[in-house]
Each structure stands twice: as structure tokens, then as C-alpha cells.
């Protein structure tokens, strides 16, 4: 039975050519060049934090060397942010994750270990450490902050509205912290992004924040304060907003720009994910869906179905054989494409100076095999829909509306608003493309977490399960209608 279906498939030259084109398209769009970056060799190696993840670490730091244990207490009287762009001039904005407060850092080298307590633009007081740690404190936009280093490299953060009644925000342990730290006041202000028309049009600019501190007390023996622009501005000194600090009497004003946070893949962060190497999967999806649907509808069109059913009257078996052949052919072709596309695409992107977050072998295998599996199940779904619809155009329209349209509207040409995009990627068969997910979403980083940037609302295998559920429903429907109806 399976051999008969395989012979049928093989004997249609157009289908074989189409499947080969699908595999070639996956590879072709992966190695066509992609985006351009500015990291060549080691000249701009992406910063990594103590945990090995990609981070950004740039802020304005007014610091001195602090030996051993002690505490710093400051009062932040105001934190204001502004965005300056050539198009619209300077505007005051609320940057939710603008940060100002106290930081204790292992060294002035970007990416080194740290703990910091801060007020933020709209997220209240936060105690953060080593880029990924984030503990929420009271919801204040200004006020008193205290950071204490105790024996055993334990750093405790406190906050207070009036300077007398203190709330303990939390404590973090930073193993391997050196005896001499750089400690002091800091201000930073991440990229400000606004999206329109879904995420198809994104406008964003570097923001700058100004924090005023009017009280700074140390239990350490006081040294002299030095101002350092840690990490520098991302685009060099000329490109970024002016940063610096000034001191009038007991009041210190610090202007900073940048972020101390894990790097995300959205437009405010790296702007690139390894999933971009699989852009061609969409073309393969359309081709494989068309071939899958025609594998069944062509039988009806040429009345071959009568011969097929005469040769094998057990109709369920005919359907099963078609499903096996279509699924296997699609899987092998797609796997051949993705297995070349992902490593080759990553190499091309890296050779163009684009930084890609490091991937484990397991994640990469999941991307390669998962995408091939998703395409194969899509082909099976197309066979099932083709059996139900019996007419080629109707079947393909249904497949396109169910799988391709949600994928296009949320990933390829993301015009839908974020809420609608997330919803589509949960309930439609296109959810299966969550197998391409390689990124982590951090609540303490403001970015556009959209499917278009590799942030899918479902876990990879859950997404594939949604597609399989759709396929199971349509296969059942196909088996029932095939048995019930005259051919």
C-alpha cells in the first residue's frame, strides 16, 4: 500500500521537483546574506555576564574603591528621562527601566559581577545582581536607598521613603567577589522603542536619564569620587546621548545612557535570533502544503480515486498510506534543508559580523528536527484537508488560511498588534513554529517580545502539539468522510 502511494508520488515529476525546491528554498534564504553587523573577529565580541549569557553593561558610574564590608546610603530626589531623535527633537518620556541608585561592582570592566539597588522609571525600587537577578521593592520613583556588604559576599538592599523607616528589599550572595570593590552612584537608561502596525514598523532611539542625588553617606573611609562612563555609548561617543556628572555642594547630578541587563533578541537588544536562518521555512511550508493537498485532490480530479479504492477497498488504509508517504517525504526534504540551513546560515551571519547568542547542541538540534517535523505535520494536515475538501483550490485555501496566514501576519510581515499575534500563535496550527524558539524573555528588560523576534507564546513542544491536535482532528474527519462518501 505504502509502496503504491510512493510510486504514485514519485511518478509525478512536478511534485518531486516542488519538494526539491522546498528544500533548496530553506537553504537559499538562510545563506543569502542576511543582516549586516559590526562585530568582526574579536573586535566587538558580545559582552557576556558572569553566568555566560549575552548582556549589555553600560552606565555612568560615580565611584571609588571600597575595601571590605560597609554600607552606602543615598537619597535619589528625581529621575527623569528623555529621548533625542533627529526627527522629533528632544522629548521627555517615561522609560520604564531607567535606573538610578547604588551599585557595588567587582571591577570597572563591563560584564563583571555586581549588585545594585535602584529606583526605576516606572517599576519601583529594584535589587538586581549579575544581570539576571531582579527583586522588586517598594513602588517608589524617588527616595532613600541603602546597599550593605556583609561578610561572605552577602549584599543586602534597603529602601525608605523618609530615611528613617527602612524596608529590606532583599539580599543576594555573589560568590567570588573580590575584597576591593568599585562602589558608588550610577544612572543608566535603556533604548526606548515604540511599535506601530503590529511590530512591522518600529521606531526607537537611545534615551538618556538624569538622576539627582542629594545625600550620599559611606561607612567606608571616604576617598575621592571619580566619574566613568562604563561600557561607553553603544555607537561611540558621538552617536549616543551626552553623559556625565556634576556636583554642586552636596548634590550630585548624573546623566547616563545604556543598560545593565541581559541582552534580548528584540529590536531594543541584539535584533537577531538564530531562528532567522529559517526564513525559508515559510516558502517550504506553502510548497509542501500544496503538494500534500494535491496528493489527495489529484486523485479526485483525475478520477484515479476509483481505481485506488478498487485496488484497496479498506479506505482507512489508503489514507494512512498517503499520510505516511507525504509525511516522510516532507520530513526528509525539510530535514535536508534545515540541517544545512541552520549551521550554514549561522556561519554566514557570523561572517557578516552579526552576533548570535550561543546555542547548545540540543537547542540547535531541536530547531533543525523540530522545524522539519512541523513542516511534515503541515503536509499531513494538508493531505487530511485535501481528503475532506476533495477540491484542490479549496484545500489549499484552507491550509493557507489555517497555517500560512497566521505565520505571515505574526512572523514574516508582522502587522498584527502584539496581543493578537500572541493569541494567533497559541491556537492556530502555526503555533508549531515555536520549535524555532531560542530566546529567553526577561521581565526586567523592556523589549518587543513578539513572535517576529523569536519570542513565541508557547513552549516549543507545546506549539508542535497544537499543530498535531489540529492534524488529528482533520485526519479523523478525513477518515470519516472518506468512508462515508462515494468516491
Amino acid at each position: 500500500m505504502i509502496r503504491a502511494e510512493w510510486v504514485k508520488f514519485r511518478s509525478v515529476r512536478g511534485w518531486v521537483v516542488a519538494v526539491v525546491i522546498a528544500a533548496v528554498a530553506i537553504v537559499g534564504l538562510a545563506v543569502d546574506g542576511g543582516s549586516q553587523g559590526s562585530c568582526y573577529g574579536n573586535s566587538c565580541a558580545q559582552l557576556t555576564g558572569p553566568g555566560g549569557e549575552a548582556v549589555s553593561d553600560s552606565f555612568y558610574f560615580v565611584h571609588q574603591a571600597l575595601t571590605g564590608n560597609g554600607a552606602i546610603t543615598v537619597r535619589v530626589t528625581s529621575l527623569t528621562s528623555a529621548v533625542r531623535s533627529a526627527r522629533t527633537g528632544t522629548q521627555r518620556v517615561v522609560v520604564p527601566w531607567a535606573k538610578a541608585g547604588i551599585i557595588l561592582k567587582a571591577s570597572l570592566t563591563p560584564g563583571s559581577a555586581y549588585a545594585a539597588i535602584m529606583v526605576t522609571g516606572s517599576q519601583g525600587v529594584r535589587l538586581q545582581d549579575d544581570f539576571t537577578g531582579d527583586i522588586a521593592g517598594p513602588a517608589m520613583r524617588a527616595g532613600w536607598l541603602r546597599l550593605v556588604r556583609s561578610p561572605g559576599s552577602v549584599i543586602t538592599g534597603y529602601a525608605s521613603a523618609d530615611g528613617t523607616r527602612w524596608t529590606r528589599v532583599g539580599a543576594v550572595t555573589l560568590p567570588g567577589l573580590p575584597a576591593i570593590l568599585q562602589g558608588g552612584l550610577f544612572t543608566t537608561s535603556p533604548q526606548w522603542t515604540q511599535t506601530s502596525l503590529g511590530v512591522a514598523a518600529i521606531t526607537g532611539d537611545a534615551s538618556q536619564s538624569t538622576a539627582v542625588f542629594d545625600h550620599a553617606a559611606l561607612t567606608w573611609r571616604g576617598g575621592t569620587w571619580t566619574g566613568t562612563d562604563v561600557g561607553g555609548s553603544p555607537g561611540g561617543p558621538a552617536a549616543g546621548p551626552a553623559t556625565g556628572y556634576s556636583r554642586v555642594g552636596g548634590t550630585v547630578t548624573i546623566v547616563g545612557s545604556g543598560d545593565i541587563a541581559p541582552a534580548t533578541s528584540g529590536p531594543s537588544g541584539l535584533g537577531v535570533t538564530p531562528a532567522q536562518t529559517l526564513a525559508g521555512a515559510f516558502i517550504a511550508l506553502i510548497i509542501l502544503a500544496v503538494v500534500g493537498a494535491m496528493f489527495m485532490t489529484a486523485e479526485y480530479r483525475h478520477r484515479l480515486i476509483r481505481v485506488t479504492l478498487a485496488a484497496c477497498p479498506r479506505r482507512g488504509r489508503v489514507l494512512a498510506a498517503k499520510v505516511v508517504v507525504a509525511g516522510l517525504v516532507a520530513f526528509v526534504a525539510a530535514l535536508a534543508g534545515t540541517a544545512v540551513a541552520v549551521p550554514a546560515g549561522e556561519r554566514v551571519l557570523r561572517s557578516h559580523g552579526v552576533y548570535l547568542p550561543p546555542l547548545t547542541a540540543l537547542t540547535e538540534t531541536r530547531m533543525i528536527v523540530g522545524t522539519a517535523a512541523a513542516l511534515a505535520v503541515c503536509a499531513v494536515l494538508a493531505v487530511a484537508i485535501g481528503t475532506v475538501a476533495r477540491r484542490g483550490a479549496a484545500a489549499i485555501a484552507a491550509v493557507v488560511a489555517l497555517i500560512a496566514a497566521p505565520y505571515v501576519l505574526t512572523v514574516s510581515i508582522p502587522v498584527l498588534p502584539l496581543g493578537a499575534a500572541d493569541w494567533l500563535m497559541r491556537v492556530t496550527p502555526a503555533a508549531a513554529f515555536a520549535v524555532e524558539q531560542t530566546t529567553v524573555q526577561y521581565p526586567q528588560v523592556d523589549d518587543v517580545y513578539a513572535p517576529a523576534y523569536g519570542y513565541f507564546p508557547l513552549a516549543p513542544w507545546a506549539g508542535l502539539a497544537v499543530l498535531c491536535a489540529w492534524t488529528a482532528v482533520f485526519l479523523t474527519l478525513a477518515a470519516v468522510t472518506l468512508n462515508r462518501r462515494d468516491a
Partner: protein
Amino acid sequence: MRRAIRAEWAKAWSDPATPWLLAALIVLSVSVSGVTIGTARYSATLCPAAACGQDPARLSLAGVYLGQAVAALAGVLAIGGEYATGMIRVTLTAIPRRRRLLAAKALVLAGPVLAASALALGAATLTGVIVLPGHGFTVGHGYDLASWTTARAWCCATLYLTLVAVLGLGVAAAVRDSAVATGVALGLLYLFPIAASAIGDQGLQRRLEQIGPMSAGLDSQTTIDLHGLPLAPWAGLGVVALWAAGMFVLGGVLLRLRDA
């Protein structure tokens, strides 16, 4: 010609798929537009003075992204269905002048698609004009929704859907199989933006956006930041018209040269 049109009209409306397709075109376009209008919010922070970033007309017309798939399908089925059933031989026996037949088919297809698109997109645009000012897209923020540029966007979007249907007809006449034609037509529409987004070279990317039928057609619906567009609005619609005309002529030539 009049007889050919009357014959095609009778055939089109005796096919139960026709009213369903037009209904799907209206429902899908209006619902995508409705969701987009409902979730769009003006953000006063980056552009408090002038209209920028979000284009209210394009937000209202977001349904075109999905509606075009139905329009293309309607075009494909207008002739593809005849090849599937063998009806095409009867048709050509009745109307042997093949160019006349294809022209009649195009007219019978374009009329209802134009009317359905105008209705659906008119409703979407009107909803946008009424609802979006409540979401911050006000005259005070530099958006003038009730203007002739909004009417132009609606007009261009309606013509765009009609041209996409004609393009589908041309492709189906050329490949003679509705399934393949649907794949080709949708591939043609969605391929250019995807290829453009995957290509790094800015110049090549812009060129692909200029010649791609979908990106050029969507440019024609823009009402703000016109100088930043790859193509001026009417030029964008012209590119779509060239694609539709090209496919239509190709289909006509092949229909004339080949046996049915």
C-alpha cells in the same frame, strides 16, 4: 461580448462557492481590521507634535493582508474550476474567441470583488475614522483622518484587492490547475516581503519592496510619512496593475496557444 459576459455571469453565480468567497472576503477583512483598530493605541511619548509612526489609515486597512488571499483565490477559481471539471471545453465551444472569454471572465470577476472590497474596506475605514480618534489619533496630534488621503487609501486598497483577483485569474489561466495557481499566486504575493526582510543589502531590499506586488500595493495605502516610502502611493498601485496586467496577458497568450 455582451453574450459572453452574460454567460460568465450566469456560470459564476450558479457556483455555490461564489457568494461564500465574497462573504469570506468581507468577513476576514473586516475582522482583521477590527482587531487591529481595537488594539491600536496612539503613543504620545515619541511624537507629541506631528503625525508619525503609526498610520491610522493602514491600521484600519490591515484586513487587506488577509483579504488579498481570498481575492486571489476568487480569481484562481474563476477559471481554475473549469479546468478541474472539464467545463472549459464546453465554454470554449460556446465562446471560441479566447481573448474575449478571458476578458469577460475578468469583468465578471472584477465587478463583484470590487464591490465586496469597497464595502468591506469602506466599513473598516469608517470604523477607523470613528474609533481611532478615541484612541489618541486626533487632529491635535497631527492626524487628519477625515481627509481625502484616507479616501485615497481606501480607494487604493479596494483597487488593490481587485487587481489581486485579476492576477489570480491570469495565473490560473497560465497554469491550468487551481491548486498550483493558488500556490503560485499566494507565493508571488507573500514571497517578496519575506525575501526582502531576509536580505541584508539595503538597496536590494528597497528594490524588492518596489517591485513586489504586495509591498508596492500596501505603499499605496499610506497616508503619513510619504517621503520615506519606497514608492509614491499611485505609483505603488501602478506596480500592482503592471503585475496583474502581465499575468493576465500571459494567461491570455497561453490560453490562445494551447489546447484546452
